[in-house]
């Protein structure tokens, strides 16, 4: 098996994809309806983090108190406020 075959399409996480398609990639400006160049990656990191923590909590349910997504949203808002 070539090196390429053993690596191709592996080691790719969603965060890798989001990182490049939101931040990189070409934007040819002009009559664009929407440009999401403004998406803040720090904020995005936080979201992905929260999503992964939520999954973790869900998988451990029973062992500890469940944290609802409302609570997470509240915490996120606080964090965002603090990071502004």
């Amino acid at each position, binding site marked *: 098996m070539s090196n390429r075959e053993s690596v191709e399409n592996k080691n790719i996480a969603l965060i890798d994809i989001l990182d490049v398609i939101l931040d990189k*990639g070409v934007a*040819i400006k002009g009559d664009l309806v929407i440009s999401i160049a403004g*998406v803040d990656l720090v904020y995005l990191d936080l979201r992905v983090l929260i999503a992964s923590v939520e999954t973790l909590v869900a998988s451990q349910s029973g062992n500890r108190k469940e944290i609802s997504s409302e609570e997470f949203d509240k915490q996120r808002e606080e964090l965002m406020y603090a990071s502004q």
Partner: protein
Amino acid sequence: MSDLIYLYGLIPTEEEKRESVIPFKGLDEQKEAYSVQIGKITAVVCNLDSKEYSEASIEEKINNNMEWLQEKALHHHNALLNLKQKYTVIPMKFCTIYKNENSMRKTIENNQEKITDSFLHLAETEEWNLKIYCDDSLLKKYLSGRNLNIASKKEEISKLPPGRQFFEKRKLDQLLDKELETEKGSVCEQIHDRLKQFSLNHTVKNNWSKDVTGKKYDMSWNSVYLIAVDRVEEYLEEINNMTKEMEEYGWKFEASGPWPAYHFAIMA
């Protein structure tokens, strides 16, 4: 109201003429994606309902609907990956949407030269990412064995009264931590230098925290290389060699690719 045009990416018309784009389901999972020829440039696009995909509604979804973002981001990326297998591709940013075909045509026509230059620059190349992780405890062990100063310092400390030993050990640990960081930085730079030789272009990115990667070890390096297709095997072989050389000291390498040239298709 007429449909909006979602632009995935641009490919050279001459390549598209040799093999036309296989239609696939567009971003809304209903209408088929298709290609639009604009001189030497072919745009791969799909139509979107202008109400459902207005700026406000997309922004709302990006900010509040992680599931939507994940699904559509994967769709955008997969569409470009499939194109990349057959054509030279300039990948667009996620959600590059024009009001109508005419406005997209005009924008592309105005940038024709830059786009065709970029095709030349990207032809027969691939983008590859490398992330380096380090098991600090293994590297620390190696460093304290390698550094004679630290070994003799340890010896000295062991002869001190217990109270002093505690403080001196703490000082030594701090010294070791500092040395660890310096070593990590310089090793990663050396690795980057070795890999740069295979690349046409390269860029160093920020490291991500463990919270984001979900990995056990800290990320020490994150870089991207644009590599000629016929040198990719050599590049990956070099990473394999480095893994063999350095694994025992705690270094872990993660190469991923080939990516659409997100970092190198730049319209300067």
